């Protein structure tokens, strides 16, 4: 893990975070907060945790910033090469398996929780979860990062299969905002992206535009 001196003490840069990905009929929606911390200092308050791996495949990164950036770079290279060999766009499942291969082989050295989401012609929108340890599982909706604990209940009660893209975007924005309010390691702005056969649409929701849930 990369360590930076903060007030004379070495701290590692972490993306303790809130990330989320959901499938809808025709694509996926992904979302994340934007905070990177080094101890109690927010090293980057506008981080982009939604990283493109290929034209229609993204990953959401949580855990160690260095580890996840390195893995994402490796997988981007491997997938790009594979796609040239195949002479067609790669499958989301392939990208997910490449992540899993790295995360499992080096599981003792890495701290990386990754959500792989994208669209391909064979199976449409797919979300794959590769948590710490290097498991791989496909789920219709998945949350990750330190803030995810707080929104499991919200997700379970509000997600329904076969939602529209706009409903998914609203749900993701609401869930990430709720997590940001409760988790000290999540905050900043909400970054959203939707991926379908027509391409990728990215959006940012600034702090003052977030839905408000304060009860006092």
């Amino acid at each position, binding site marked *: 893990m990369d360590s930076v001196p903060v007030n004379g003490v070495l701290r590692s840069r972490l993306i303790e975070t809130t990330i989320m990905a959901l499938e809808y009929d025709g694509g996926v929606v992904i979302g994340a907060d934007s905070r990177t911390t080094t101890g109690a200092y927010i090293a980057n308050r506008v981080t982009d945790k939604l990283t493109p791996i290929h034209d229609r495949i993204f990953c959401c990164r949580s855990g160690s910033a260095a580890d996840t950036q390195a893995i994402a770079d490796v997988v981007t290279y491997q997938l790009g090469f594979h796609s040239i060999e195949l002479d067609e766009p790669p499958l989301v499942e392939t990208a997910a398996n490449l992540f899993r291969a790295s995360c499992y082989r080096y599981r003792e050295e890495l701290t990386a929780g990754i959500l792989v989401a994208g669209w391909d012609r064979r199976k449409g929108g797919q979300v794959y979860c590769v948590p710490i340890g290097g498991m791989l599982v496909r789920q219709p909706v998945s949350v990750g990062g330190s803030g995810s604990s707080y929104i*499991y*209940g919200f997700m379970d009660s509000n997600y329904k299969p076969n939602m529209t893209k706009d409903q998914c975007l609203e749900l993701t924005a609401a869930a990430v905002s709720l997590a940001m309010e*409760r988790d000290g390691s999540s905050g900043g702005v909400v970054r959203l992206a939707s991926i379908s056969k027509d391409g990728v649409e990215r959006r940012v929701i600034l702090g003052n535009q977030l839905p408000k849930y304060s009860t*006092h």
Partner: protein
Amino acid sequence: MLQETGTEWLSQEVKTGTTIIAVEFDGGVVLGSDSRVSAGASVVNRVMNKLSPLHDKIYCALSGSAADAQTIAEVVHYQLDVHSIEIDEDPQVRSAATLVRNISYKYKEELSAHLIVAGWDRRDGGQVFATLSGLLTRQPFAVGGSGSSYVYGFVDAEFRRGMSKEECQQFVVNTLSLAINRDGSSGGVAYIVSIDEHGTEEKVVLGNDLPTFFDQ
């Protein structure tokens, strides 16, 4: 678990790793809890009622170490009895909460229990108090226990002031069900207690009657 002899649980601390919630409505309160008591990986009691009466119209919800929580509740029950005889009327909810807080704060290094105190009195109607780590704060609703982390997002999004008693009961049951689904230390049945000026009503919702969600 090749080496397990089945007796590890005898030496592990008994915890009510749990989910507890109390909600205020206009005219009273609703308290809810799950019913699981665990010692390590074993469930030593699957039907424990964690809603303990402190007085006719004041209840507390127990979480954390089972022994610590029960003892605090019993001591405060006795102290409130004496106090209500001395003042010759029903005690205030704030008095009960203060008594719990006094014990929690004085012995905070030795105890590891969190009690939520809720009830109805003539002066201020329905009230909910949190006493975590020895603080005392009145809140419109409070959640606690290991399962509460998973439902912070849900309760933040769904709670509204001015709900009726039935809406509060439904809100409590939904919250408990979501938490039980995600938290390994919560489970069993849901106990609900509703307190208003007319009296106290205790109810049990069995496991198969709990609300289900999209993945069940």
